[in-house]
């Protein structure tokens, strides 16, 4: 009974980003004891190299779309989009990490290895066509993230962040898994397209109640992962407690990947019962936006504020999910890209101003940044304007597309409430601007060090990206729309 199962070159190409990243991650682990003391920055460079190579791999894989490994892995536009997105987030996170790690005198090798592994998980998730694969990818991404959240293990905030992230993340995973189990019970498969086929058959109608229960459970699980209300409780603590570059990463990459599978699962597998889950998403979207924005209003810690804002942004993307249309998917993809850029940019500024031991995290510590470092302040302004949704920034078009999708799906009230929410959100983003430009410099600004090249890049690249998305959104949106057509 010799088994001969050897992947074809196409299979390997489709899988190449993960291979590259895994190999690189392992390499970093191996090199860590050798070079950690002498060349602490080497690992960052290597990580960027690996991520860039993987991006190339992901793009190359898009040239040969299709399913591989007994249909477990599907490379399509959707997968490629999110792969490139999480890889880009990875690069930006690494860029933003250089200074931070140096300042905190943290180990660099393991940090970057974990980061790469986390990205592996996300790449894997977004290209998966099977719930179990998604589960494994989700866990790879999550477990690496748990560790990253508590990376500075002598820091109490880090500990707490890691613990909360871990406990609630695992809890969510269990729900997700239970949903998968029930779904498997009904349809005898975990492949998304087969589930869809199974549910399309007339006989399946009687099982819709069961499928709805499964969908609800999966929704709970994924809701936790994307920090959509009412499952957002962990997000503020985790984003506040984790090391700043990790928070930047956590608020973007895992979220993007989780949303990717959210869309894939709900639009592919659960399309048949869309009427059932739409109200659920509707409520969650509204709650996320409202809770996120109103809670952010009273925050004084920048990281926590950004955390609540990320909850609110998850709400906007859930609006797109509630629309459950092609255009909604495309809108969410676009929004996630824009959101990732502006959020990482904002966090990069936080990293910059935080100082050793993250002492300067109060909003007031931003005071006088506009005078001290007008360049940095200008970048933050761009990101904040984008977060508010001012035209010519990516955030604006993101919001626009999402609410267009919502209106097209007749979710008028959701759109109105969402947009009013974004007006509320403007208030707390503006508060940052106010402090930064209008207040006199405080202690934090006094000790501010000049921008390092890594951080500079982590600011400028997202800023360029934000403008790019804001001025010529067609490029990204076009790709997103072509891809979105595939997952329906």
């Amino acid at each position, binding site marked *: 009974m010799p088994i001969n199962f050897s992947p074809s070159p196409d299979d390997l190409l489709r899988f190449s980003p993960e291979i590259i990243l895994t190999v690189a991650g392992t390499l970093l682990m191996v090199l860590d004891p050798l070079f950690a003391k002498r060349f602490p920055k080497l690992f960052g460079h290597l990580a960027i190299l690996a991520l860039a190579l993987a991006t190339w791999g992901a793009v190359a894989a898009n040239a040969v779309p299709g399913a591989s490994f007994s249909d477990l892995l599907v490379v399509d536009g959707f997968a490629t989009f999110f792969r490139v997105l999480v890889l880009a987030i990875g690069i930006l996170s690494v860029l933003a990490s250089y200074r931070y790690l140096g300042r905190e005198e943290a180990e660099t090798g393991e940090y970057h290895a974990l980061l790469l592994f986390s990205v592996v998980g996300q790449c894997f998730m977004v290209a998966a066509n099977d719930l179990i*694969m998604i589960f494994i990818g989700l866990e*790879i991404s999550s477990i*690496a993230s748990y*560790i990253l959240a*508590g990376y500075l293990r002598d820091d109490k905030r880090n500990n707490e962040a890691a613990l909360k992230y871990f406990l609630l993340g695992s809890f969510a995973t269990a729900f997700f898994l239970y949903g998968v189990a029930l779904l498997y019970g009904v349809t005898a498969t975990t492949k998304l397209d087969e589930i869809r086929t199974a549910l399309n058959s007339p006989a399946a109608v009687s099982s819709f109640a069961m499928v709805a229960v499964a969908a609800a459970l999966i929704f709970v699980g994924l809701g936790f992962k994307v920090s959509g209300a009412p499952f957002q409780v962990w997000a503020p603590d985790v984003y506040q407690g984790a090391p700043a570059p990790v928070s930047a990463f956590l608020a973007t990459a895992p979220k993007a990947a989780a949303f990717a599978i959210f869309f894939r699962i709900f639009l592919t597998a659960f399309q048949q019962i869309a009427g059932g889950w739409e109200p659920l998403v509707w409520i969650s979207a509204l709650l996320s936006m409202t809770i996120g924005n109103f809670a952010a209003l009273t925050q004084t810690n920048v990281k926590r504020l950004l955390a609540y804002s990320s909850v609110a942004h998850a709400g906007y993307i859930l609006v797109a999910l509630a629309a459950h249309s092609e255009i909604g998917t495309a809108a969410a993809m676009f929004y996630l890209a824009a959101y990732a850029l502006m959020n990482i940019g904002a966090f990069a500024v936080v990293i910059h101003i935080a100082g050793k031991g993250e002492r300067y995290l109060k909003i007031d510590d931003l005071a006088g940044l506009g005078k001290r470092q007008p360049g940095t302040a200008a970048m933050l302004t761009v990101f904040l304007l984008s977060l508010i949704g001012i035209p010519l920034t990516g955030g604006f078009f993101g919001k626009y597309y999402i609410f267009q999708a919502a209106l097209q799906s007749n979710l008028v009230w959701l759109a109105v409430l969402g947009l009013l929410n974004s007006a509320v959100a403007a208030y707390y983003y503006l508060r940052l601007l106010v402090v930064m430009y209008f207040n006199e410099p405080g202690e934090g600004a006094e000790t501010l060090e000049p921008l390092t090249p890594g951080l500079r890049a982590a600011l400028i690249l997202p800023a360029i990206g934000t403008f790019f998305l804001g001025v010529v959104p067609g490029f990204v949106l076009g790709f997103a729309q072509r891809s979105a057509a595939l997952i329906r």
Partner: protein
Amino acid sequence: MDLFFFVLFATVAVLSAISVVVQRHPIASALSLVGVMASLAVLYLALGAEFVAMVQIIVYAGAVMVLFVFVIMLLNAGAEERRGRSLTAHLLGVPVLIAFLGLICYFVQREFANAGFMKFGNFTGGSAQSIGLALFTDYLLPFEITSVLILIAILGAIVLARKEMD
């Protein structure tokens, strides 16, 4: 016979699970959890999943739970003082949970009441061979990728729990 075993071990499992939840001492909870796992392993055997049943014992009961016990001992974690979470949590949580349970049970009963009957030996696909074949053909990719998971776990344990070198 099937019924006898099911009732026996289901009862053990449920009682142990209750014990996990209500025991005040973490060690007691941990051992109760081992009890759950062991009785589940027996049920797995009955369902024709002998390989998984054994792996359940080896990995879960024998490794994961030992790790738990180990950590509990290491930290010398004492019993929890009996001052539960806030009253509202109980007032809200218990009915919601019961409703959740009732819902699932209702739907399961409705959907799968006649889905099949477990008779020992009616399914023999759980041998090591068939599992291995599946793992190395259809599920090769996830199988390989779980190695990354293990790698992360090792790395994480090193990062978080190693001694300071200097």
